[in-house]
C-alpha cells in the first residue's frame, strides 16, 4: 500500500519520529536484520545543529504512567560531523532519508538547509522549531510571525520538501501551521513532546529529577492531545500533515489518519520494541485494506 508524500513514493504511511530511533546504533545492536526488516517507510534522523552538542547532564529520563519525560538536549555531532560520519551510513538505508535540523537563529537554520540542499542522499528536510530564536527571544515554533519569517528565509534555498515540526507548547498551533504553509512549507509534522517535569523523590527540598530541569512528555499519555492537535491543524491547512503522539498500534495510527494525517510517525513505542514501527505498519495496512471494501 504505497503512499505519496511531498513527491516521495513511500511503501506505507509509517515513519519514525525524529530522535526516537538511531538507525546507526540499531544496526550495531541488531546487524543486517535491521536493514532487511526496516520498520519505517522513510527515516527521519535525529536533530542536527550547526555546532556539536553534548546534550543535557543525566539523569535524562523519567518514567510516567503511560509514557516518559525525556531531557536529552539534542546531542549530535554538528553539521560537519553529521556530513562526514552519519550521512554516508544513513544513505545506505533502504528508505528515503529526511534530515531534521535546528538552528538558534534564522541564519543558522539557513546554513543547515543550504548545506543539505545539494545532498542527493537527502530526500526532505524537517525543521525543528521547538527552540528559542536567540535574536528575538521568541520560541520560533510558538509564534506564527517567527515561523513565517523563518520559512521566507529558507524556502528559496532548496527545492527539497520542507516539513515544519510543530511544537504543541503554543497558544494557537493551527495559526503557526498556516503561517508555515503560507510561507512555502510543504508539510507540517506534529506533535513534538509536551513540556513536563518531575521532582527527585529522594530530595527533601524538591529538586528537579532531570538534569535539564524540564523535559518533553511522550508516549500513550499524550495520544489524546496529539489527536486533537492533528485534527485542528489538518482543518487549518491544505498541505499534508505527519501525525504522531503515543501511537502503539495500527488502530491508533488510523485514528490520526482519520483526524487528517497523511503519514503517521511512531516514536516512544520503538523504545519498548525496536520493531514496533513495522508491526504498526502491518496492522494499519490491514485495517486500511478492510475499510476500503
Amino acid at each position, binding site marked *: 500500500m504505497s503512499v505519496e508524500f511531498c513527491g516521495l513514493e513511500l511503501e506505507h504511511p509509517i515513519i519514525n519520529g525524529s530522535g526516537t530511533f538511531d538507525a546507526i546504533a540499531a544496526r550495531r*545492536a541488531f546487524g543486517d536484520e535491521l536493514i532487511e526488516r526496516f520498520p519505517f517507510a522513510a527515516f527521519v534522523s535525529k536533530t542536527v545543529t550547526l555546532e556539536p552538542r553534548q546534550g543535557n547532564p543525566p*539523569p*535524562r529520563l523519567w518514567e510516567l504512567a503511560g509514557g516518559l519525560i525525556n531531557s536529552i538536549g539534542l546531542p549530535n555531532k554538528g553539521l560537519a560531523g553529521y556530513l562526514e560520519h552519519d550521512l554516508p551510513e544513513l544513505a545506505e538505508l533502504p528508505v528515503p532519508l529526511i534530515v531534521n535540523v535546528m538552528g538558534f537563529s534564522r541564519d543558522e537554520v539557513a546554513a543547515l538547509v543550504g548545506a543539505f540542499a545539494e545532498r542527493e542522499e537527502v530526500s526532505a528536510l524537517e525543521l525543528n522549531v521547538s527552540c528559542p530564536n536567540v535574536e528575538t527571544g521568541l520560541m520560533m515554533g510558538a509564534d506564527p510571525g517567527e515561523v513565517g519569517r523563518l520559512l521566507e528565509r529558507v524556502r528559496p534555498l532548496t527545492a527539497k520538501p520542507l516539513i515544519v515540526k510543530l511544537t504543541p507548547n503554543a497558544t494557537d498551533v493551527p495559526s503557526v501551521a498556516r503561517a508555515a504553509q503560507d510561507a512555502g512549507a510543504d508539510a507540517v509534522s506534529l506533535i513534538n513532546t509536551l513540556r513536563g517535569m518531575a521532582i527527585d523523590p529522594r530530595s527533601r527540598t524538591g529538586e528537579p529529577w532531570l538534569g535539564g530541569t524540564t523535559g518533553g512528555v511522550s508516549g500513550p499519555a499524550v495520544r489524546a492531545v496529539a489527536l486533537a492537535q492533528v485534527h485542528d491543524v489538518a482543518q487549518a491547512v491544505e498541505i499534508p500533515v505527519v501525525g504522531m503522539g503515543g501511537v502503539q498500534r495500527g488502530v491508533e495510527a488510523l485514528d490520526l489518519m482519520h483526524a487528517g494525517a497523511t503519514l503517521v510517525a511512531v516514536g516512544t513505542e520503538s523504545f519498548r520494541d525496536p520493531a514496533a514501527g513495522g508491526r504498526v505498519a502491518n496492522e494499519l495496512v490491514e485495517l486500511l485494506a478492510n475499510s476500503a471494501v
Partner: protein
Amino acid sequence: MSAPFGCRAATVTARESHGAYVVIRCQDPTGPRPRPGQFYMLRTAERWGGGDGERPFLPRAFSVLRAHDHELHFLIEDVGPGTNRLCELEPGEELLLVGPLGNGFLAPREDRRPLLVGGGVGIAPLAIWQDELGPDPLAFLGFRDALHAHGAALLANPVVATDDGSVGHHGLVTDLLQNELEEVEVYACGPPQMLEAVRELCADRGVPAQLALESGMACGFGACFGCVVPTTDGYVRLCLDGPVLDASILRTAAPAGAGH
C-alpha cells in the same frame, strides 16, 4: 553476534527464591548465546503498560545471570513497579525481551588473574562470567544483610561481607580487597557507591578494572540517548558502549541519577 531485531516472547520455566532475590528462568530458543556481561531488556507480556495507562511502561535492563542451552536466568530484586511485576512471573507466562545487548566483559590482560567483586543484585553478570572463566576466581560479594546474602550461593568461591555483619565480614566489600590486588584484573558490578569505591581503590593501586554500570534506559539499543554516563571522552551511551566500561575512562562510577 547481533541481537535478533525486535522483542520476542520467552516462556518462563522457573521461578526460584534466594532470600531477598528471585531468579526467573525462561526459554529463549531462537536467541544467540549471550556473552558474559551482556544484558537484556525485559518486560512482561501482560500488565506492563501498553495502553492501559499504568507503570511500568518501559522495559527494564537486566544483566544476564546465567545461560544454559537457550535457558536464560535473570536475577531480580523487587524494588519498584517493574521489578515487582517481574518477580510475580509464574511458569507458563511470557516475558518479552530484546537482546542480548551491549558489550560484555573482556578477558583479563596478560599475566593477570580475574577477581570478581559484586554488590547486591549486581552480582548477576559475575555469575555468567565465572561460568565462562571457570570456578577458580574468588568472588568478593557485599550485601545489606543475611536475607540478601543468600544471593552469594549463586556464585562459586564467594567471600561475603554484609553491612550489618550478620554474614561474613562486617563492613564493606572493598575492605576485603585490600590484600588481594596483586596481579589481578577486577570485574565489578554493584551499587554506584560500591563501584566508585572499587574504582578509586583500583586506580590508587594501579589495578585494571572492568566495571558493569547501571543506568535508567528507555530502549537499550541506542535510540533514546537517556542512559549516558560521563567519561573522559564525553558522554557515552551505556547501552551501546557499555554496560561494561574500563575504569580508566571514568572519573566517577557513581554519576548523578545512578542507582535509581
